[in-house]
């Protein structure tokens, strides 16, 4: 599903953000990428959804070399992915429903179908009774659940989550992780960046350890 071959990344500053990272993720896998701050976790995710380009290396997603996709066709790659950010990246001037519906509007899904699918996605994260509220009126945990509903509403093949529990307490973090596990059980490939060892211990199956941009080891529990 996702294959990285000798990926290197250097930003403007000296030193490598990623050094010779290679790994394969199979369809339906549930992976954690972990490491201390600045180890390159977020850079790795950004490269996979092609927000940034690697300095060297090749990345294959769903049998397609994503570095060969022209800029104006990147949407084709992104439509296969659902992305969850640490800072949620919600539209705070829009209601919960609209925040989730925007994904389907982009895809040109009919209005009636949007209503049905958004309701189902919000029910999955237990927010269906708050879908007409504004995100700013909800708690952090609820906001992150909106972000998860948005990421899964179009049933993407891949879910990428960058520190999805970074702003949450332990109880909420477990709740969010359970949701992502549930999404994975429904068939999506899930990659989560986190430095929360407790979560990894509890939910971890396959783990990548990054340190200073290098892939130290891979573990399958």
């Amino acid at each position: 599903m996702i294959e990285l071959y000798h990926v290197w990344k250097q930003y403007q500053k000296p030193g490598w953000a990623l050094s010779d990272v290679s790994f394969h993720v199979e369809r339906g896998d549930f992976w954690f990428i972990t490491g201390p701050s600045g180890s390159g976790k977020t850079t790795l995710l950004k490269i996979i959804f092609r927000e940034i380009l690697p300095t060297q290396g090749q990345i294959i997603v769903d049998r397609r070399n994503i570095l060969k996709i022209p800029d104006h066709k990147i949407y084709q790659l992104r439509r296969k992915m659902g992305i969850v950010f640490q800072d949620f990246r919600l539209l705070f001037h829009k209601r919960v429903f609209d925040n989730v519906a925007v994904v389907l509007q982009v895809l040109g899904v009919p209005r009636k179908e949007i209503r049905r699918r958004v309701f189902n996605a919000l029910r999955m994260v237990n927010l269906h009774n708050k879908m007409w509220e504004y995100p700013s009126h909800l708690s952090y945990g609820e906001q992150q659940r909106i972000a998860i509903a948005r990421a899964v509403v179009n049933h993407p093949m891949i879910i990428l989550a960058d520190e999805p529990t970074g702003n949450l307490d332990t109880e909420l973090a477990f709740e969010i992780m359970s949701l992502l596990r549930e999404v994975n059980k429904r068939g999506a490939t899930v990659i989560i960046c986190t430095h929360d060892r407790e979560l990894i211990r509890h939910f971890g199956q396959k783990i990548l350890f990054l340190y200073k941009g290098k892939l130290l080891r891979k573990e399958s529990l």
Partner: protein
Amino acid sequence: MAAVFFLENDLTPEQIDNIEAKLKESPLVLEVNFITSDDAVTRFKNKFPELEGIVANLKANPFPASFEVTLRENIMSSSDTADFIYQIQRIPGIDDIQFNQDWVERMQSFSRLTRAIGFFLGGILILASFFIISNVIKLNVFSRKDEIEIQRFIGATNHFIRVPFLIEGTMLGFMGGAMSLILLLITINLLPLYLGASLGVLKEFINFRYLTFGQSVNVMLGGALIGLFGSLTSLARFLKK
């Protein structure tokens, strides 16, 4: 604008008809009125009743017959008018012409000048509206940067992101055009009332005229087009990333 062509005495009705036909042939001519010698005397007497006695004492009618010709107001140029006068002057039977060419030329050069100033100011305003709309859209894009970024992450095409801004720019331009038409209408109706006597002799020559339907539509469509291009240019750089 008018010109008077005085006729020689003792012309036959055929000769007079011939002159009238030639006058009416010209596209510059709006209206032709034939004034007989008797009509001219009557007019004189009505205008200057105190001089009626002098005219009565004359043995013959001193006033010649004439054609009073009204020329179109939107005549192409003073040279066209001069050519027309020259041609009519050469027709046998025309004795004299009353026509103020200097005044016409001055008015026409004044008209050319105001038109040039109009074009210049219009050009500046078009450029200004282009940059204003472009900047409004740029600010709008900037204020919705996060939303656009989210749209890009969830797989929106550039087209999907661009369309609302293009519609906005086009509508701004269209409404700008419509508002300028309303302002023009108000100005045209109020300015002559306001200026009134201050226009003096110019009042006869300055003709405040509203745009035709076609011109009004063009102004609004032009505004919409400026808005569309303004938004396109402001989006082009942003969506290149």
